[in-house]
C-alpha cells in the first residue's frame, strides 16, 4: 500500500467543488415548459396517483381564453410537492405523459422548516424564458 502522502486524494471539496451527477439523477422536482413558454403540465394528476408517498397535490382547472397556461383544455392551478415526504423514487416522472414533472440533479435544497419544504407550483415551475443557469 502506498503511503498516504503519495496517494491520490478522494475527497471532494464540497461546496466549492460539486461532483457532476449522472443524467438519471433523481432529486429536486421541476415542472418543465414547452419551448413557447406554455407549461407542460396538464393537471392530469397521474403523478399524484403513481406516488407511493402520496406527497403530490394537484388541483386542475380549465384553460380559458385570456387565461391559458398549458396547451389543451386542462392545466394545474395548484401543484404542490411535499419534498420532505417524497422518497425520490421517480415514479411521478415515469407516470407523467407529457414530461412535465422531472427530477433534476439539484440535491442541496434543505430548508429550516417543514412548511418551506412544501414546494408550490411557483417554486417548481421552471422560469421562462429559460435562463442560462439551470435550476440546479
Amino acid at each position, binding site marked *: 500500500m502506498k503511503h498516504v502522502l503519495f496517494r491520490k486524494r478522494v475527497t471532494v471539496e464540497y461546496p466549492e467543488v460539486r461532483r457532476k451527477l449522472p443524467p*438519471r439523477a433523481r432529486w429536486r422536482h421541476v415542472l418543465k415548459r414547452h419551448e413557447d413558454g406554455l407549461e407542460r403540465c396538464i393537471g392530469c394528476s397521474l403523478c399524484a396517483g*403513481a406516488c407511493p408517498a402520496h406527497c403530490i*397535490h394537484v388541483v386542475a382547472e380549465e384553460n380559458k381564453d385570456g387565461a391559458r397556461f398549458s396547451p389543451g383544455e386542462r392545466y394545474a392551478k395548484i401543484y404542490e410537492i411535499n419534498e420532505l415526504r417524497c422518497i425520490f*423514487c421517480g*415514479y411521478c416522472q*415515469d*407516470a407523467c405523459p407529457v414530461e412535465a414533472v422531472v427530477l433534476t440533479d439539484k440535491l442541496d435544497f434543505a430548508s429550516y422548516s*417543514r412548511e418551506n419544504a*412544501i414546494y*408550490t407550483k411557483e417554486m417548481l415551475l421552471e422560469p421562462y424564458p429559460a435562463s442560462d443557469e439551470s435550476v440546479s
Partner: protein
Amino acid sequence: MSGEIITGENIDQFINRLEENAGTPDAQDMDVRIEPAVLHKLAERLNKSPNLSYNYLSDITAVDYLGESPRFEVIYRLYSIPANRRLWIRTRIDADTEIPSTANIWRNADWLEREVYDMFGIRFAGHPDLRRILTPTPWIGHPLRKDHPLGGEEVQFTFNTGDIIPQEEFISEHLEGMDFAGYIENGDKIESEAGAGRLAELVKEGKLIVSMGPQHPSTHGVLRVILALEGENIYDVGMDIGYVHTGIEKTAESLIYQQALTLTDRIDYVAPIANNLAWSLAVEKLLGLDIPERAQFIRVMLAELTRIASHLVWLGTSALDIGAVTPFLYTFREREMLLDIFELVSGQRMMTSYINIGGLRDDIPDGFIEAVKEFIKIFPDKLDDYHKLLTKNPIWVERTRGVGCLSLNDAINCGVSGPVLRASGLAWDVRKVWPYSSYDEFEFDIPVGEHGDVYDRYLVRMEEMRQSLRIVEQAVNRLPSGAWRVEDYKLVLPPRDRLDKSMEALIHHFLVSTEGFPVPRGDAYTATEGTRGETGFYVVSDGGTKPYRARMRSASFSTLQSLPLMARGHMVADMAAILGSIDMIMGEVDR
C-alpha cells in the same frame, strides 16, 4: 397430497408415506395442510427422523383471511438441509384457537412465533415467553389483522398547514384504550413486564443487568441488548427489538405492487437492490413471467455489486467497533465507486428501485459497463489491502478468533443463514441450492468456515466479496443483448414515444401507473441469497392490484436470535465484535 388435511387420524400414515417417498423427486417440494393439533407431533418427526431431517425452519408466518372461517392461515416453511428439500405446512385456525409451539424443536420458532402473536394475535401453546416483539408492550390490537387500521397522518401541503387532521380522526377506527402517555410515564413498570420472569430471576441471582443500546454505536442500528453480567463476564443476553418497526408489511397491503417495491428498498437499507430483486422475483412468480436474459444478467450484476457494497459497510463498521479505525475509510472509498455506479444506472445512490417487476426500470446507460469494469480492475487489490490490514493482525486475531462461536447445529437450529451459517461450516447458499435469475450460469465458489467464530465470519465475507466480483466479471463479459424487460404494456409502462400516438398505449400507461396491474390469485415465495442470508418475500394475491399479504423472510431476524448462544461466557468487550460479525440490519429485523 393436495386437498388432504392431516389430522390426528391420518398423521401416522402420512408420516410413513413421507418416509417411504423420501428419496423421490415428488418429495423435493411439498405443501401439506394440517390440523393445528398435530403440529407438534409432525414437527418432531419431521425434524428427528433421519430420512426426513427437516432440520431447518426457515419461516413461520400467517395470513388473515378475514371473512373466511377459520380466519387465519399459519404457514411454516421447512428445509431439509441434507437433502435440499422444501416443505410447506399450512394450518387454518380461528382467533381463539391455540397452536402448539415448536420453539423447543427449532429455536428459530421462538421469535417467529412471537411475531405471529404480535401481528395476528395467534397464541402458541407452550411457548417459553409469548409476548410482543415488534410493537411496544402497551399496544392494543394486532396490526396485521385486516380490521386493524394502518394509521398514518395526512401529508402536509399549504391547504392543510395548521389544520392537519389528527391521526385518531384520520384513520377510520380508533385505537381505543392505547395509552402511550402512560407508557412513557410508567416506563420502568412496563419495562419489568418485558421478559419479567427471567429478568427478575437474574437480578435475584445477583447478576448486573446492563442495557447495551438502543442508542449505541456498536449495535449497528437501533437494537437493545440486555446483558446479564457477572463482573465483565456475560452470563446471558436478551434482546429487545422493534425500535425500527415501521409497519412495512402492513403498508405494502395498501400500495400497488410497483409502489410496494419502493418500500423494499428501505428494509435492508444497506443492500437495497437485493430486496428489489427478491420482491420482483416473488411477484413475477405469481404472474408467471419469464424475464429476458439480459435483464437477468444485469440483475445478477447489480445484486453482486450490492453484496460487495454491503460487505464493505460491514467490514468498515465492524472493524471500527473493535477499534480498527483505518479500514472504515478505505472500504467507504470503494463503496463510493459502487454507489456512483448505482447512481449512474438508476439516479439514486441507495434507494434505487431499479430492479422492477418485469425486468428493469430502464436499460443500462452509457458508461455503466466502463464503470463496472473499472471497479473490477481496482477492487482485487483493495481487497488485498484490507487483508493486509486485518487478517494477520495480532490484535484483530486476538479479538476475533474463538470469539462468538456458533456451532453448526445451533446455527441450523436457529435458522441462521448467509455468511454466519457458512462460517459455522455449511456450504449452504441459495444461489447454489435453488438458483434464481440465471445464477446457475455463473461459476463461483462458496467460502465456508470451520469454527464459526467471528474470525471465520470475517474470512467468509472477505472471500465472498472476491467471489461476487468474479460473478460480476462473468456477467459483464457475457452480457447478452436484447430486451431488458418483459415488453408487455399490461405490466410495464410503454415507451414514451408511443404516448402521443397510440390510444392503447396511453390507456395502459394511465392504468398501470395509477391503478397498477392485477396479479392472479395465489401465493408464492422465492428465496434469494441476500447479503445477510436467505431473504425472500411471501406474497399472497387476491386477484387485485395490491398485495393481500407481503411477508418478508428476513435473514437478520433469525440470525440475530442466535446472539445469546454466541455471547454467553464472553466478556462485555466481545459484544462489539460479535454484533459486528452478525452483520444484521435492524431495518430488516424490524421491518
